[in-house]
């Protein structure tokens, strides 16, 4: 396997790019693995990587129905932040952010994490009071957030209409400077390549169709479109399809799947060098290195497994762009699509054990799974390898829906649910 470096790039340039090898193998499934991970998106691949790297568990398969990162990992708006309200959430999302900060070096793969900061804008007195309370809580949790004035917002986001007559006048806001964006495909590919190097088998075009259990009800294998694979431990990281997999295994989850749309505009000269999120319209927007504006808004508000968007949401999101950034009013949308997000009642993830022994989940990240990939993978790997929940994951167990210890991040998930 080739190590990526500036030196290597130079050498390959002189040799006519003939020395590169594939970033990962395409093995046939073995009859048995120590651990099988279902879902070859960011969370599944990260789980495999940390299993191999941190816990030395290398006889691992990642089964992906389609292609790597073809689900929500390749369909989100790439924002990474940790400005959540409750201490449990702040801890796990900030752990993810810390891992992202060192990820390119750790994986020897440039995930293009750009800490360009993020500004959340308040558009009424109530928004502003809510923001102040939010920032207070986050500062107590040790997250680098601070309130910002209208002048500062105007300076950092000149395309935002901050005039008194704006459709959504800006009253102020807050910022997290360590927030930013990353290249989403690179996160999946980087984890895949690094996991493959440590011996993990990444098996694409391999759909899981059922689970086998032994007489005590424990997982003993999976039925796939490429044959039967024996294993004692299965990790599920399938986001919007978690309920489908759970049904196959004989239980149900407190999840509802919705379509969340994302949009990219035609490429523009640089107009926005941070991430902007409006508390009034739910619009979040950044500009990619290619110049396209990457943006999104609310969910399509009914259950869906269709990975495409519906016109009313296209219209409301486009209207938010035109209302709040009038200079973008005539910019054309190049592409739009949807990912299927698995939303829990408290907008917090479900991590750990299920009613089926040997079967563990990493799901329920809803609209914010991309930012959590390194942490989601890390804590699931810990649980799969040690049999015990990582301390960061403990509050997010499935049990909380019976005990009532919900972690209600409906507001901090930053999107209108």
């Amino acid at each position, binding site marked *: 396997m080739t190590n990526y470096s500036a030196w290597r790039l130079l050498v390959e340039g002189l040799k006519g790019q003939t020395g590169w090898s594939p970033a990962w193998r395409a093995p046939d499934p073995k009859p048995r693995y120590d651990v099988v991970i279902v879902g070859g998106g960011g969370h599944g691949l990260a789980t495999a990587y940390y299993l191999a790297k941190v816990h030395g568990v290398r006889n691992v398969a990642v089964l992906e129905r389609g292609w790597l990162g073809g689900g929500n990992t390749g369909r989100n708006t790439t924002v990474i932040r940790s400005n959540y309200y409750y201490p449990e959430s702040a801890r796990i999302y900030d752990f993810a952010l810390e891992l992202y900060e060192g990820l390119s070096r750790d994986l020897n793969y440039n995930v293009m994490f750009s800490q360009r900061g993020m500004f959340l804008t308040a558009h009424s007195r109530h928004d502003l009071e809510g923001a102040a309370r939010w920032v207070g809580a986050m500062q107590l949790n040790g997250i680098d957030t601070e309130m910002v004035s209208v002048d500062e917002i105007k300076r950092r986001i000149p395309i935002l209409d901050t005039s008194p007559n704006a459709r959504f006048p800006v009253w102020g806001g807050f910022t997290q400077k360590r927030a930013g964006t990353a290249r989403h495909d690179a996160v999946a590919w980087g984890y895949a390549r690094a996991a493959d190097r440590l011996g993990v088998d990444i098996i694409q075009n391999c759909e899981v169709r059922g689970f086998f259990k032994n007489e005590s009800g424990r997982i003993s294998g999976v039925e796939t479109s490429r044959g039967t694979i024996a294993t004692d431990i299965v990790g599920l990281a399938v986001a919007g399809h978690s309920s489908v997999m759970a049904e196959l295994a004989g239980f*149900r989850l407190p999840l509802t799947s919705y379509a969340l749309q994302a949009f990219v505009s035609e490429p523009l000269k640089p107009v926005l060098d941070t991430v902007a999120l409006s508390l009034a319209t739910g619009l979040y927007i950044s500009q990619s290195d290619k110049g396209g504006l990457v943006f999104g808004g609310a969910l399509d508000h009914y259950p869906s497994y269709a990975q495409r968007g*519906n016109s009313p949401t296209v219209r409301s999101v486009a209207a938010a762009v035109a209302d709040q950034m009038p200079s973008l009013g005539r910019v054309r949308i190049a592409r739009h699509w949807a990912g299927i997000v698995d939303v829990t009642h408290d907008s917090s993830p479900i991590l750990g054990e299920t009613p089926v022994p040997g079967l563990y989940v990493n799901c329920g990240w809803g609209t914010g799974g991309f930012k959590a990939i390194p942490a989601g993978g890390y804590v699931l790997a810990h649980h799969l390898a040690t049999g015990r929940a990582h301390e960061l994951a403990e509050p997010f167990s499935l049990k909380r829906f019976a005990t009532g210890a919900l972690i209600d991040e409906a507001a901090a998930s930053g999107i209108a649910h």
Partner: protein
Amino acid sequence: MLLIECPWCGPRDEIEFHCGGQSHIARPEPYDQVSDETWGDYLFTRINPKGLHLERWVHVFGCRQWFNVARDTVTHEVKAVYRMGEAAPSTEAEAGR
């Protein structure tokens, strides 16, 4: 854009409606003997099927009445609309329950 046939107002665009989630959820009784697990399931656990889904909708910008819709969550096709209190109309619709 979905076209939804309100039982009182006739066919209207989806933006006049709001989806209230899974239908036909029975509250566990008697209330003082329900376990925490059963109550948690009642409040939070959902079928969330990939395929036919029986769900409640309200005509929020219209007559404000609630009713049931049998809809496919993959194609979004509305298979049937029926009133609150009525059973799901066909055996086909039973598949999603």
